[in-house]
């Protein structure tokens, strides 16, 4: 009897909490039953990557793409790295419920409607909405090491790329990396480090929302030494020039 009453009480209390807390209904993205699983085929009214590139800034764009990685979710807005067979799209602060954010696993196909924008050289889609479609695609990294410092590198903006045989350089006072851009941060902040190839040095970043301090890449960068030769993978983000967001790093 005691157990029975306790159980009833618990159930009632839980139900009451649910009624109290869930005053709003979560919006769920419609899962379209599109049969187009082929990454080459775009639905009607959807731009090809070429058309997206040609579109004017501030114009509305409609694309189909595949989630490659998620950077962050906050207050029903998600920032996501996506790519199709032809190119990549960075989705900044896209309207997204937390429930739908969980569904955006790598490879998930989505149709996105938003506006093309540029912020410090980073071309992105803002004020976007999306729906999940059927289909899956994970991009293989393209090695762009040879393109560093060349104009054509920007053609690969936001794509999942790799860099091979780059040398870790001094980030200041002999440090192989900095917390925040000038070392003013602390553990958990973005990591900045310098790597060079062919005599040119570039600033790479471990974006802490994409890869926080519990990830292998964050730890790997913290263990770097000046002079290490490294292979890396990541997304070809842009901030006043190329500024890759690194997701993996191996010391040779």
């Amino acid at each position, binding site marked *: *009897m*005691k157990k029975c*009453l306790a159980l*009833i*009480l618990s159930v*009632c*209390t839980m*139900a*009451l909490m649910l*009624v*109290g807390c869930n005053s709003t209904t979560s919006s769920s993205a419609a899962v379209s039953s599109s049969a187009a699983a082929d990454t080459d085929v775009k639905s009607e009214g959807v731009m090809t990557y070429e058309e997206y590139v040609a579109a004017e800034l*501030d*114009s*509305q764009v409609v694309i189909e793409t595949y989630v490659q990685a998620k*950077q*962050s979710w*906050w*207050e029903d*807005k998600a*920032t996501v790295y996506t790519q199709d067979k032809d190119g990549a799209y960075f989705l*900044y*602060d896209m309207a997204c419920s937390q429930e739908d954010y969980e569904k955006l696993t790598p490879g998930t196909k989505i149709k996105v409607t938003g*506006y093309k*924008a*540029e*912020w*410090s050289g980073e071309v992105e889609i803002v*004020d976007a909405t999306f729906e999940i479609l059927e289909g899956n695609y994970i991009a293989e990294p393209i090695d762009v090491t040879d393109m560093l410092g060349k104009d054509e590198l920007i053609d690969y903006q936001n794509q999942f790329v790799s860099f091979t045989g780059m040398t870790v350089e001094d980030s200041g006072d002999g440090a192989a990396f900095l917390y*925040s*851009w*000038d*070392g*003013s*941060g*602390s553990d958990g*902040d973005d990591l900045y480090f310098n790597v060079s190839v062919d005599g040119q040095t570039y600033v790479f970043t471990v*974006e802490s*929302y994409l890869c926080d301090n519990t990830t292998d890449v964050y730890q790997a960068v913290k263990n770097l030494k000046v002079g290490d030769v490294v292979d890396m993978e990541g997304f070809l*983000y842009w*901030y*006043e*020039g190329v*500024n890759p967001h690194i997701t993996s790093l191996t010391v040779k």
Partner: protein
Amino acid sequence: MIREKTKRAICGILALCGMLTVLSGCHGSKGLKPFALPDTFDETKPFSITFWAKNDTNKTQTEIYQQAIDGFESLYPNITVNIRLYTNYGDIYNDVITNISTGTTPNVCITYPDHIATYLTGTNIVAPLDDLFADEAYGLGGSQLRFDGVTQQEIVPKFLEECAIDGVHYAIPFMRSTEACYVNKTYVEALGYTLPDTLTWDFIWEVSEAAMAKGEDGNFLINGQNVLIPFIYKSTDNMMIQMLQQLDGGYSTEDGEILLFNDTTKSLLYTIAEHGETRAFSTFKISSYPANFLNAGQCIFAIDSTAGATWMGTDAPLSDISEDKLVDFETAVLPVPQFDPEHPQMISQGPSVCVFNKTDPQEVLASWLFAQYLLTDEIQLSYAQTEGYIPVTTKAQNSSAYQEYLSHSGEDNTTHYEVKIQASQLLLDHIEDTFVTPVFNGSASLRDAAGQLIENVVKSVRRGEAVDEGYMSDLYDDVISLYRLDQIGETASGKADLGPLPVTAVVLLASLGVVWCLMLLYLVWQRIKRKKSK
């Protein structure tokens, strides 16, 4: 990058404000006992206090904080100060609110009075400082201090006033800044204009539009480049607030009544839309940091904090753009544009320091001693020199060391970087022309809403949307809803009419009542049964 984090922090504020309101409303706000000032400070007992500090992503500032801690700990060996660094106010605000609910607030915290107004919705969360100010032993300039403290009279009255809410001081100012217009004077003159001593809005709009002329090659004539945004504003909330203040257009009352959504605002938005449409004007959120465009010769009027002066100009010691993009030009540092240049008005901003209440009054006193130590000359002078800040005490401002620092303006591009010192001088010359907006629970959201109006309008015209009366009406509704401004009055009074309980809730509450009755009946029945069996 930095942008994502700043915006996330702003969004978080909205959610956490709501959370704090709910928590304080639902739990009867038992809170802490009011802080009672001890007679003496126990110097035998060890105290470990936490200090949440904000820096402008500036390593020198973090080093100064550490030096302050080291100096303080050497004076008070029984107090250990643990610093936690932040790079924006929003994150501090979010974390404080989260920690209020768990009783784990920091001891000392860099903050804005707007934020304190929200913290005050909890009970005795923040220590009121007036008694501490006045205490003869440990107060401002007190006899028992182990350092050369400042007296209350030595804190710039206007800045101290900004830290009072409903007549009670809950903070002390730490640094002050305002906004400045960093101007590419070279381009202004090349366009055939002469910079006035005080910019007007009309002047800025006119020059900005004139700069949009293009050559046959499609590049802008003034810079020969294909990129030019003549006028970029970093903080559009400040832009709207200052415009309204200058026009006496109505923003909010001291009591928290919201006046922002008025016809003056609408008229300003139409003007802004006009120049957003031609692309003569843009914002940080839409385009990027004004400094990046200014230094690349792609912006003529860059409005940002005086605390961002080290990023401005051809020879700026800090820069996010590569050297090959830097363009040579003369930088002028002027007050923000005015509607009435004879009576300039500009925002006062910059960090203040609050002390959180704790169960042990001795711990609060230890925290107060550290907070007060931050006003000493050495810290005030060294921190003020990191950016276009000014010290908040007349003692530091008038010191020979500070006057010496100002006098060496332009002698190098590091400590004495001319643009930075001009930015500081701008505020020193205009302290009496500064203002702050009223502080109340929800004032932080209202500030965000003011900026959002501008951001939305500019985005819309860039996208070819019609900005007309219908648009404005919808915009006001959307922004009021987004920032829950229609709930501010209700949550402040705590007497919101939430309407009747939903049927499901009534049924569940009734069920709970029945179950409790059944349990009581069961207990009574068991007791009777036991008695009978005896």
